């Protein structure tokens, strides 16, 4: 558990604040995802948790015990690095077994290592020296090294970025199995949301050293707190349409610059939500758009098809939005009327980017 941790790196004159008073509670036995673009401070946060980096201010607690000053070696933590950190001259077997030398008898070590190697699928490489393996196998060995130990927490720093796409899927399900099997809390850092959303029970989305939202994947998906989180979660990313609230009769509409109107009066106490916000942004996910008898005119400009998954790029009032529709078959050039699932619309204040709930 991190309690308003700040980390400021001083290199020469310019000081970069990697982490700005960040508070993060990691309940036991949960799989926490730390998601954010490169350089948002997620790796620094991870290193502070692991004890490899000292925070400039703020405290770090493990089960209530203040470990801020405690060195990484005493925190019983296991970590996988972005580039597999293996001891170059040792064989795969020794690399995995080395951490157990002090704890288990040789017989037990052998059993453990063989079991883990079998599980990850590197049993026939046990004898070869790690420097001869390619990066995919090396990362598998790094995972095996971590599994063999029995740490209080697993820390993974973008373990799958360096690996081939095909092996990435294989390792993703392996990591999920590991988490279920060992039931330990895991902290997983990545900029690739597919990995984090599949593995994590709770996810913290970070940007510029701050946590923007800390919630379950479903809530992040359905109730993003601001435009950044909304944009960052979900593939393809959410569409944003600038608009202004206009009252016509007893119905309340959001009209875009080019005049198309969206009826939003159904949203509960929408009146109260909207006052005080002149300019708004309407957010709608591509999978929540459908073709309706009457709605907003849209011309299809591009189609991305992948077997059953189809993504249509539709031009609406001059801006291109993406729609993910299964049963429809549009070709470039068709114009069609589209509408949005009313309950899936999310409104954001244009200036602050904060969502209105």
């Amino acid at each position, binding site marked *: 558990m991190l309690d308003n941790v700040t980390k400021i790196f001083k290199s020469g004159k310019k000081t970069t604040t990697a982490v700005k008073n960040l508070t993060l509670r990691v309940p036991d036995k949960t799989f926490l995802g730390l998601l954010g673009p490169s350089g948002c401070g997620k790796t620094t946060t991870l290193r502070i948790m692991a004890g*490899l980096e000292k925070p400039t201010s703020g405290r770090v607690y493990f089960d209530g015990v203040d470990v801020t000053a405690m060195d990484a070696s005493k925190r019983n933590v296991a970590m996988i*690095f972005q*580039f597999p950190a293996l001891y170059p*001259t040792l064989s795969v077997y020794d690399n995995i077994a080395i951490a157990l030398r002090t704890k288990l008898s040789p017989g037990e070590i052998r059993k453990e290592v063989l079991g883990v190697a079998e599980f990850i699928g590197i049993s026939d490489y046990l004898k070869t020296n790690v420097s001869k393996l390619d990066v995919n196998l090396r990362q598998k060995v790094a995972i095996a*090294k971590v599994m063999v130990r029995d740490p209080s927490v697993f820390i993974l720093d973008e373990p799958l970025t360096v690996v081939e796409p095909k092996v990435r899927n294989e390792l993703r399900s392996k990591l999920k199995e590991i988490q279920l099997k060992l039931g330990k809390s895991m902290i997983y850092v990545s900029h690739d949301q597919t990995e984090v959303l599949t593995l994590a029970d709770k996810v913290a989305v970070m940007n510029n050293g701050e946590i923007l939202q800390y919630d379950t994947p479903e809530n992040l998906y359905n109730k993003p707190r601001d435009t950044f989180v909304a944009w960052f979660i979900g593939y393809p990313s959410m569409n944003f349409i600038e608009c202004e609230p206009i009252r016509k009769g007893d119905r309340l509409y959001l009209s875009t610059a080019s005049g198309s109107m969206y009826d939003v009066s159904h949203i509960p106490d929408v009146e109260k939500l909207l006052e005080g916000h002149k300019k708004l942004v309407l957010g709608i996910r591509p999978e929540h758009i459908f073709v309706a008898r009457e709605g907003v005119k849209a011309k299809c400009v591009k189609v991305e098809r992948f077997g059953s998954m189809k993504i249509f790029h539709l031009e609406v009032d001059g801006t291109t939005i993406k729609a993910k529709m299964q049963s429809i078959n549009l070709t470039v050039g068709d114009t069609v009327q589209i509408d949005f699932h009313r309950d899936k619309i999310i409104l954001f204040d244009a200036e602050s980017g904060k969502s209105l709930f």
Partner: protein
Amino acid sequence: MSRKNIFPIFLQLPINIIIFSLVAYVLGWLIYSVFYTTPPGGQTTFIGLNNFITVLSDARLFNAVLRTAYYAGLGTALEVLLGMIIALGIVNLVSSNIRRFIILIIFLIPMGLSEAVVSHIWLMLLTPQGYLNSILRYMGLQPVGWLTESMALNSLILADIWQWTSLPLLLIYAARVSIPQDLYDMAKIERLSAFTTFRVVTWPYIKNALIVATLLRFIFMYNTIDKIVLITFGGPGLATETIGYYIWMQSFSYRNISYSATLSLLTLLSTAVLAYVFWKSLKR
């Protein structure tokens, strides 16, 4: 031969012109002088292999070889060992970059000095009434005969250590600094003992630098005679005469050109062999 593979040869032409302008004559002359000799005013005669026979029977040469082995061997061993200890010491004890930079500069100065300057500094220290002895006397201790028969060679080694420990230090420091920090983080997390961490993380990287440093230093000490020429003149007696100094004397004092050419050729060959070993270790 399309343009593609002539071009690289063209790249090498300039340096080859510069080098061969001198080296060609030198090698030619050496080989020629081994087999032909022209006594002053006399007639050039072919002397076949008797130069090599003299080499085998030359006792003074044999002692010189032993002395060189001792001088270069002990010197290199001490320098590399001391260099490694200090390099690791700097990395582990001094964390701030500025302090490390200052210490490194101080330790590396001797390497930048000319052998001639260093020889004279140590001459000031080692000469019988020099500073070392006057400090010893000042402290009431017995002055030491640094340049006497028994001590001369060791004093030379001491001077060489003073100047050249910095090379192994630099090589090992560079290798140690190039080790990715992730490995040390992993070792810390896996609670490896200091010794295991050294054996498994540090050693593989600096082992290579160590070998390179040892070979580099051995070849240089074997090939450099500046200190001997300037401090002890090979003396007292033959106490500090290495192969190099022996050749130096043959070429310029005793003036028997043919024999000195033979010795020079043999030294060149042995250096080439050592260089080959060095190059092989580098490629691994």
